[in-house]
C-alpha cells in the first residue's frame, strides 16, 4: 500500500478504501467484520441446541424441561451460579493452556498432565513447610512451583516440536499419561500419608494452609486468578512484541524464520506459559479444594479445557464466558440427572453436539457477504 499509488493511477478506493466516509463508518465496518466471529458461533450453538432437542425428543424427554433445569441448576439461584463459577475456575486455566499455544500454531492438549503434576508438586512442596513457613509464603511458593513444573511439562512438548519435529499434539497427550503415572508413583510410594491407608494421598496441608473463598462468595480464588490471567495473556498476545512475534510464527512459520524471529524460544515460551496456567489450576485443586495431592487431581479438567478453548476460538477474553457456560452445563448436569432421570452422559452428548457443530462452522467464515464492507463486496 505504501508504494506511491497516485503514480500508478490506482482507483481511489484502493488507496483509501472507505473513501470520504472513513471517519464516520470505521466503527460500523469493524463491527460488521467482527460480528462474524460472534454470530457464527452463536448460530452453531443454536444448531447444536436444535440437534440436541431432537435427541431429547427421540428418547421421550422434553427439551423445555431440560432448558429450565439447566437454568435452575446452573444460573437461576445464587447457589447455582456460584456452583457454576467454581466449576468454571479450573476450566478457564486449562483453556488458557490450549489457547496460548494455539496462537503460535500448536495444538497442545497436555493441560491435564501439567495440572496433575503441578498440583502434585504443590502438595509435595507443602509437606516440609507445614507448621514452619507462614501460610502466605508457603502458598506463594507452592503456586510458583506448580507453575514451574507445569510450565516445564508442556514446555518440553514445545521443545520437542521445535527441536525434533515431534508432533506436539501427540507428545503432549502422551506426556499427560506419564505425568499422571509419576504422581501415582510418588503418592502410592515415597510421599504416601500412611495414616490414610485406603486412598493413597500426600500428607494433608491443613486448614491453615488452604486458599480461602473470594469474600462474600462460595467461589475459591482460582476463579479470580483465572480471570486476571485471561486479561493479562490477552494483552500479552495482542498488544506486545512478544505476542505479535508469536502470532506471526503461528501465521507463517517460514516467514517468521525468514524474518529472523526467535521461533524456537517463542514456541517453548508459549508452551511453558500454557503449562504454567494448567499447573496453577492444579495448585488451586490442591490448595483450595483437595487439601492434598492424590489421584483425584486427574478429573479431566485438562481435557474439558480443550473444548473451552476451541469454543472460544483461542481468544483469552472469550474463554471466561465460554467456561462459565460449560461450567453451568456441568453444574446443572446433576439436577438434570435427578429430575429428568437421564444418565450422566446426557450433558456429554450436548457438549459433543456443540463441539462438532462448532468445528464444522469454521468453514463458514468468509462465506457470508453480509459481514464484509460494501466496497469489498463490490470488488469481489
Amino acid at each position, binding site marked *: 500500500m505504501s508504494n506511491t499509488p497516485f503514480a500508478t493511477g490506482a482507483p481511489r478506493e484502493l488507496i483509501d478504501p472507505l473513501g470520504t466516509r472513513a471517519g464516520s463508518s470505521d466503527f460500523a465496518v469493524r463491527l460488521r467484520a467482527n460480528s462474524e466471529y460472534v454470530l457464527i458461533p452463536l448460530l452453531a450453538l443454536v444448531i447444536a441446541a436444535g440437534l440436541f432437542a431432537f435427541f431429547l425428543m427421540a428418547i421421550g424427554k422434553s427439551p423445555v424441561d431440560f432448558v429450565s433445569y439447566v437454568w435452575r*441448576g446452573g444460573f437461576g439461584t445464587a*447457589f447455582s451460579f456460584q456452583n457454576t463459577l467454581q*466449576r468454571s475456575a479450573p476450566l478457564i486455566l486449562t483453556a488458557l493452556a490450549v489457547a496460548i499455544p494455539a496462537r503460535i500454531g500448536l495444538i497442545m492438549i497436555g493441560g491435564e498432565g501439567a495440572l496433575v503434576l503441578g498440583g502434585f508438586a504443590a502438595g509435595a512442596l507443602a509437606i516440609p513447610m507445614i507448621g514452619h513457613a507462614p501460610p502466605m509464603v508457603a502458598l506463594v511458593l507452592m503456586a510458583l512451583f506448580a507453575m514451574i513444573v507445569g510450565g516445564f511439562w508442556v514446555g518440553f512438548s514445545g521443545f520437542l516440536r521445535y527441536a525434533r519435529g515431534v508432533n506436539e499434539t501427540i507428545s503432549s497427550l502422551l506426556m499427560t499419561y506419564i505425568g499422571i503415572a509419576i504422581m501415582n508413583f510418588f503418592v*502410592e510410594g515415597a510421599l504416601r500419608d500412611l495414616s490414610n491407608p485406603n*486412598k493413597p494421598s500426600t500428607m494433608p496441608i491443613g486448614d491453615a494452609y488452604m486458599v480461602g473463598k473470594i469474600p462474600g462468595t462460595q467461589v475459591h480464588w482460582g476463579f479470580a486468578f483465572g480471570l486476571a490471567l485471561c486479561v493479562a495473556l490477552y494483552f500479552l498476545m495482542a498488544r506486545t512484541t512478544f505476542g505479535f512475534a508469536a502470532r506471526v510464527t503461528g501465521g507463517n512459520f517460514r516467514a517468521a524464520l525468514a524474518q529472523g524471529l526467535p521461533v524456537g524460544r517463542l514456541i517453548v515460551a508459549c508452551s511453558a506459559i500454557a503449562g504454567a496456567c494448567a499447573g496453577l489450576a492444579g495448585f488451586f485443586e490442591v490448595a483450595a479444594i483437595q487439601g492434598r495431592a492424590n489421584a483425584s487431581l486427574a478429573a479431566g479438567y485438562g481435557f474439558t479445557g480443550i473444548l473451552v478453548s476451541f469454543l472460544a476460538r483461542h481468544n483469552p477474553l472469550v474463554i471466561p464466558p465460554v467456561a462459565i457456560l460449560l461450567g453451568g452445563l456441568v*453444574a446443572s448436569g*446433576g439436577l438434570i*440427572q435427578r429430575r429428568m432421570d437421564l444418565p*450422566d452422559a446426557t450433558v456429554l452428548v450436548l457438549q459433543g453436539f456443540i463441539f462438532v457443530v462448532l468445528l464444522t462452522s469454521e468453514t463458514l467464515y468468509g462465506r457470508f457477504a453480509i459481514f464484509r464492507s460494501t466496497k469489498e463486496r463490490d470488488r469481489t
Partner: protein
Amino acid sequence: MSVTEFSRRGLLKTAALGVAGATLNLGAIKRAFAAADLTVGIVYVGARDDFGWNQAHAVAIKSLKEVPGVKVVEEENVPETDAVSKSMESMINLDGAGLILATSFGYYTPFVVDLAKKYPDVQFRHAAPLWNQDKDPKNAGSYFGYLNQAHYVNGVAAGLCTKKNKIGFVAAKPIASVLSNINSVLLGARSTNPNATVQVIFTGDWSMPVREAEAANALVDAGCDVITCHVDGPKVVIETAEKRGVMTCGHNASQAPLAPKGFITGAEYKWITIYKGYASDLAEGKSLPNFLIGGYEVDFVQNTPFGAAATDPAKKAALAAIEGLKAKKPIYVGPLKDNASGKIVIDKTYDNLDPFLDKMDYLLQGVVGSTT
C-alpha cells in the same frame, strides 16, 4: 438341621434384596412416614449399572424408593473433587435432601466433613469406616459392610468346586480391604479343601479393564479353574473367565447374568439393610447411628444365589458357613503365617470385626503372589 431347611433359608436370604427383612420393616416405615417425608440424596462415583460397587448401592436405592414417604434423588459419575460437594449441596438446596449418602471412599475428607459442618441439620453418611468420634461432626457418620465374610463363603464353595485346587484372584490395589478379601477366600477354601491355593494378580488400579482381562487370562493359563476378583467393576473378569470356560465367584454386586455356565456364587453388599434402617430412624425422629459396620451377623453382606457351577456339596458347605458367620464364628483363626517370610502375622484368633484385621498388609501362606 436338614438339607432342605438349609436351602430354603438360603433362598430367602440370598433372594436379591432380602424380601423377608424388607417386609418386616415395611409396616413400621409406612406408619412413620405418614407424617413427614424424607428426601434422600445419593452420589455415586461411577455408573449405576457397572456390575460392581455402584450397582450394589443403586440396587438398594431402587428398593428404598418403594418405601412410602421416601423420595430418592441420585447422581452418578460424580468425581472425587469439589464436584461432589457441589452435587451434595445442590441436593440439599434444590431438592431439600435431609439425608445424604456419599458412596465413594474419596468423598469423605474434605467434602463430606466440610459440608456436614456447613449444614448441621442435614444427615451425612459415608460408605467407608472413616468417621472419627473425636474430630468429625455429629451429623456425619460411616457405614460399611465386611465383604470379606462373603468372600470367605465364596472360598468355601470354590474349594469344593475346584478340580485343580487353584483359585485365581484379580485384585486392584494391595490395600487392607482387598488383602482381607484375598486371605478370606483362601481360608474359606482351605476350610473345605486343605490343598487349595489362591493365586493373585494385582492390576494396580480400581478400574483397568484391559489389564483385568489380561490378568484373568493369565490366571486361567496358570491353571486356575475358579476366578474371582476385587476390582470396581468385575464385569470384564467374570466375562473373560466365562469365555475361557472356567468357574467364577463374583464381587460387590450380582454378576450371575454374566456367567450362565460357570458362576458359583458371589460376595455382595446388602446396603438396603442400612438404608432402610436410616429411613425408619429418621421417620421415627430417632437420631441416626454414627458408625455402622458389620457383616453377616447384622445382615450387611450377602452371597449371590448359586449359579450353575455350584455343586450340591459346595452349596451345602456355603450355607453352613453363612450360618456360622451369622453366629460370629471367626474367620481368622490364629496363628497364621504370611506367604513372604513365613512369619506369624496373626498371633491368635481374632473376632471378625477386630480393628487389628483392618491393618492387614500381608498375604497369608497359601496365597501365591506378592503385595509389592
